[in-house]
């Protein structure tokens, strides 16, 4: 099958893994179709992806180029094969935790594909068919708020938003101004209260820390229980104890689903639907476009199912290529659903940190 037929396959179909990888390599590394960035970068790879990258496992041959996305002109990221008509939906940036922000371009065809998949997920999870959404989280250059806007629009709702600038919060904390971060967070909760009190919001999308904060105000807990049918959380990990309490005590009548995403994979993935007593959050990928590997932190080898390791993310689509991006998250490797490439992940989160009390002097 021709390259573009594979990459542009109908939204409700899934291309075969190896065939898809080969087509994507042809597209991104042919002078006529590849992006200026990748065509230039290919000269230093030491291998020809069109010849040597044929399977999912071969993606690991690529270097992790995520850091280069801090400096690349966004025009250079658009594959030439789109011609002059490439429809740019937006440019989105990472949170800037590890330095200057990294930048990606979202093209219309990718958005259509992602939204089709997301809508299937929402359907499967029983999200309300109509009603408005409240996004309490990053907007601005971040893809988080935009994803919510698109999802809400697809389901006939309006996205209300409370803007959170994560970079400012991180800066406050890094500079020891925790009190300022605290005030800012409470300001965000005040803003959401106005919307929750006055608008017909059915879906709430936010981060676990902000959800925990919302839960501090009894009046808001009551409002959410009365109005909200589903809560999506993402952008940070949720520990299993918090999730248990939210589901059983705080928001017992509300569907609670996690999403795991990143600007660097141009999207987010919904939590696998499991029975409530499984007490575990698993994220399946959007194979073959968004895929994960879970690897040993020391050796880089894929760990066994059930073991923990570091998450490697891959995005391979017609519009964008970012393979082999080592994220700082840890996760348990889980077998994917049949037919998917790579791994599913569970229990995503940072390394458990405890008060190690390194202080020696003193008796306490």
């Amino acid at each position, binding site marked *: 099958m021709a390259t573009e037929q594979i990459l542009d396959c109908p939204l409700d179909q899934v291309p075969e893994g190896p065939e898809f990888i080969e087509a994507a390599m042809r597209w991104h590394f042919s002078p006529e179709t590849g992006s200026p960035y990748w065509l230039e970068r290919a000269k230093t790879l030491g291998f020809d992806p069109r010849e040597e990258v044929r399977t999912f496992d071969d993606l690991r041959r690529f270097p992790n180029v995520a850091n280069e996305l801090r400096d690349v002109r966004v025009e250079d990221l658009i594959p030439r094969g789109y011609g002059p008509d490439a429809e740019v939906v937006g440019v989105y940036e990472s949170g800037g935790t590890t330095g200057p922000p990294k930048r990606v371009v979202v093209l219309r065809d990718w958005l259509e594909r992602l939204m089709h998949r997301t809508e299937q997920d929402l359907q499967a999870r029983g999200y309300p068919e109509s009603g408005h959404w409240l996004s309490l989280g990053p907007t601005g250059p971040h893809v988080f708020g935009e994803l919510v806007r698109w999802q809400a629009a697809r389901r006939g709702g309006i996205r209300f938003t409370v803007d959170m600038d994560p970079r400012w919060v991180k800066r406050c904390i890094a500079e020891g101004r925790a009190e300022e971060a605290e005030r800012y967070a409470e300001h965000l909760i005040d803003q959401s209260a106005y919307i929750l009190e006055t608008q017909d919001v059915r879906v709430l999308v936010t981060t676990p820390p902000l959800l*925990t904060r919302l*839960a*501090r105000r*009894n009046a808001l807990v009551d409002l959410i229980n009365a109005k909200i049918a589903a809560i999506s959380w993402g952008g940070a990990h949720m*520990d*299993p*104890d*918090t999730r*248990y*309490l*939210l589901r059983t*005590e*705080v928001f017992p009548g509300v569907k609670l689903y996690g999403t795991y995403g990143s600007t660097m994979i141009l999207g987010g993935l919904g939590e696998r639907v499991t029975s409530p007593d499984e*007490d575990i959050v698993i994220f399946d990928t959007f194979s073959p476009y968004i895929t994960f590997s879970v690897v040993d932190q020391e050796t880089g080898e894929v760990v066994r199912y059930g073991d923990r390791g570091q998450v490697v993310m891959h995005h391979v689509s017609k519009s964008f290529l970012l393979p082999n991006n080592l994220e700082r998250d840890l996760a348990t490797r889980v077998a994917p659903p049949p037919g998917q490439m790579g791994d599913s992940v569970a229990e995503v989160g940072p390394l*458990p*940190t*405890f*008060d190690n*009390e390194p*202080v*020696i*002097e*003193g*008796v*306490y």
Partner: protein
Amino acid sequence: MEELILLDALGAGGPYHSRSRQTITELTGAPVAELSLVPRLFVQRTMAALREARTSPPHDRAAALARAGRLFATGTVNGIAAEEYQHIVSRVSGMPITVVRSATAGIGRRAGEAYRTTRHARPQGAVDDWRDPLTCDGHAVWTRRGDVFAVHAAGNHPGVHTLWLEALALGYRVAVRPSRREPFTPHRLITALRESGFGEDQVVLLPTDYAVADDIIRDADLAMVYGGEEVVNKYGNDVRVLPQGPGRSKILLTGDDWESHLGTIVDSVSAFGGTACVNTTAVFVEGDPAPVAEAVAERLAAIPSLPPEDDGAVLPVQPAEDARAIEKYLLDHVDGATPVLGGDGVVDELGDGSGVLRPAVFRVDRPDAPQTGIELSFPCVWFAPWSRADGIEPLRNTLVLTAITEDDGLIDRLVEDPSIRNVYLGDTPTYRMPAWVPHDAYLGEFLMRTKGVIRT
């Protein structure tokens, strides 16, 4: 220990076995217990429940405290008999078993006395209840400054858990964040309190990681935090927080007769394995400190190295790696001081992965030497020369100062100095702590205030 002890969090809805847990190991590194760690959401919901709870009448509280004290000290709590509890604490903390035993008895006794002890702090002008006939004419009533009291506890000695019992006696609802090193004592004590009449929404145990710990303080009205200099710096300006900072207890010895005080000095350095804030860490000697230091060192050197569960154990034991780190810290800070004992190291490994921290005695050549402020969790003492010309400056910033002197003028100045929190005179060891003597002022002074009430 074949089966791990499960230490649940003790929330307002009962024990909570969390998914996130921390393994508590004993001195050899072998796991002994699993401690449930609760997330921020659990903390905030528990603190809210404490705030909404109602306090039971004073005499019910006093009776329940007394029952809990007996149960804690002698009974079986959470399936663990008192002797077993003492053994575990000794093996986990490395504290000599005899110290743990007397601490257990002490907690039991202090629980029974907690209500009566609070009376010492009540201003003479105040009564306990607005119904008191004295208020008809107008009077002060002693009232709580808040309802919820939080404690960031320490793990250096079980006895740190006696003080907050007074808050319970005064009608506060209390949340304790246990030390990671030794959560067994507060878990046992709070379980005993609950079995003796305190509701689950009256006293809770909230083991959390470091990031969440501050939430406990934020959601309380008042808090008490144990720690070193960094804790004092962090909370020193917060009027809601009472820091229990470093002890830096000292002895001042004037006059020629030091021989008859030798036992008091040695005991003050080595009681409780040297792990308490009331252990002497610096001795100031008028005249030549060398002979005193040598005599103290000789006594301390004779203490045997034993595993902590041995009835003859006096010295603290730590996992060998931790003990070596403490030793390195000490040796890195000698900085010109003259070693009398322990100058070439203090760790005596027992061969099972643990090491005894043997006593250290050093001499410095001037009273303001910075080493006199070093406080370590084993018997470690710095001897300095002192003369009246040096004044009381070197003696300041002290939890307990034992002054062996006949100089009333000097004693006046010591008693007046606000940075010396207890002055003991004569042959009194620094570790003596009768219930009626304030430890670092009466806790009641922090927890309570007077309120004017006039009935017309």
